[in-house]
């Protein structure tokens, strides 16, 4: 279930991307954090207690919004701009 609720920018062009293998759509000018949290309510599990996290500062300071691309690259969701065709994965499995 979504965490963020869109109030504006609804008419901007849709941007197609994939999240955990599912086709999704965001808006032009979305950050990856916005595109994801308007669909789901968790970005990753914390490193030690494996509790859900969904970002906190939205300005690149807290480092709580790291997710993965399908290629295994780590990206910080809140200051990465959503691009068409992005293939993204939340970090739902605890890091070993």
């Amino acid at each position: 279930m979504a965490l963020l609720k869109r109030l504006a920018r609804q008419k901007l062009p849709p941007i197609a991307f994939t999240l955990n293998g599912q086709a999704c759509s965001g808006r032009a000018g979305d950050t990856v954090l916005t595109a994801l949290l308007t669909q789901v309510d968790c970005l990753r599990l914390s490193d030690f207690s494996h509790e859900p996290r969904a970002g906190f500062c939205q300005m690149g300071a807290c480092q709580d919004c790291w997710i993965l691309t399908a290629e295994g690259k780590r990206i910080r969701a809140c200051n990465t701009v959503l691009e068409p065709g992005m293939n993204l994965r939340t970090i739902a499995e605890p890091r070993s």
Partner: protein
Amino acid sequence: MSDILRPLIVGAGPAGIRAAQTLVGAGIRPIVVDEAPSGGGQIYRQRIVPDERSPQDLYGSEAAKATALHETFAQIRDRIDYLPETLVWNVRDKAADVATGNRTRRIDFSHLILATGATDRVLPFHGWTTPGVFTLGGSQIALKSQGCAIGEQVVFLGSGPLLYLVAWQYVKAGAGVAAVLDTAPFSAKFHLLRGLLAQPAVVLRGFRYAAELMARGVPVHFGVQPVRIEGKARVEGIVWRERGKERRLACDAVGYGFALRSETQLGDLAGCRFIFDARDRAWRPECDMAGRTSVPGIYIAGDGAGIAGADAAELAGERVGLILLEDAGFSVDRTRISVLERRLAAIHRFRDVLEAAFPFPDPWAGSIADDVTLCRCEEISVGHVRAAVRDQGVFELNRLKALTRVGMGRCQGRMCGSAAAEVLATACNQSLDSVGRLRAQPPIKPLPLEIAADGEAA
């Protein structure tokens, strides 16, 4: 003379842009680096793509200032070397290490202006890591930059002028605001009456926000002590204590913060001497009235030099530009410097009023429970810190970090540093300044693992 001057400005917020404009005015070509994709800084942050909202919708009473600043930046754009989406991650011997995407390189500078601004100061309480809890600044970024509310029934909590401003911006944008929970007692707001003479427009605007919130039926509570967030997978409610009683409210998001804290890591790496700022309850690079740090050629302006707000940041940015020019042997308009200094002094006097009206929630550090997570990266509890004091006699922050890992995680103490200092000082019964400050370490933010260096690098 101008061809040997190669100033580097870190931060394209109000301070950095005005500093750049001033240098450009003297025929100098500064390098301006900012992590963000466009200029404006925190308050005047720009959207990634334009949308249907006007500057008035986005910046409210500050729309004219926002537009003026963005226009200035556009006008000087081809007379500066601007590196957006670029992080300055280290400073050493007249050079900075900067990373853009997956590349890092070294930039030599003749002078350095640190205009790095601030981030929210947060304090932990039960459940503050739950999805749906964001900082106040983060809540505002969601709205301004992304056109999103952090939830459908949002509670705003904390202290500081941003508390009422963000709540009001949410209501204006059509978001559901369940309540405003102010940790300060109502009586603290009488201090604002003193501010009416000094900065009438600012004070009246604040009163208007509060009045409009109440008129729209948003409950405002004073003297609140946060107890816990309810909900495991996401926020379901908030519990707080007020006049000795516990109260609960259902909500699906919480935005909170306790004013701001300066971003000071680069000044530390550059070897600047630090002083303790009692008003900000934090250490920051020491600087004179003009923004000169203890290291020749390194200057500081804006909220990174102590919290003073966006208007002060613009004035300080211009002043530091003029001072740098004067130090480099240019003749500058001394009358203008005096004007800037007078205006800055007035704002600083007003800051004391704001601090009294929106005080830090003392004695917060003593009352917080042992099992509250203090460090959200390394997941260290408040009890760990107290145990380190009790069992290992710790009384200094870096020692605490080495022993408990508080502040050692990815955020480098940006989220837990203020709270760790407060808890440590209270636990070992010392003053806040005497427990010291967390040392900055390069890279000051995590770099991509696959980073590659251009030429000589770290």
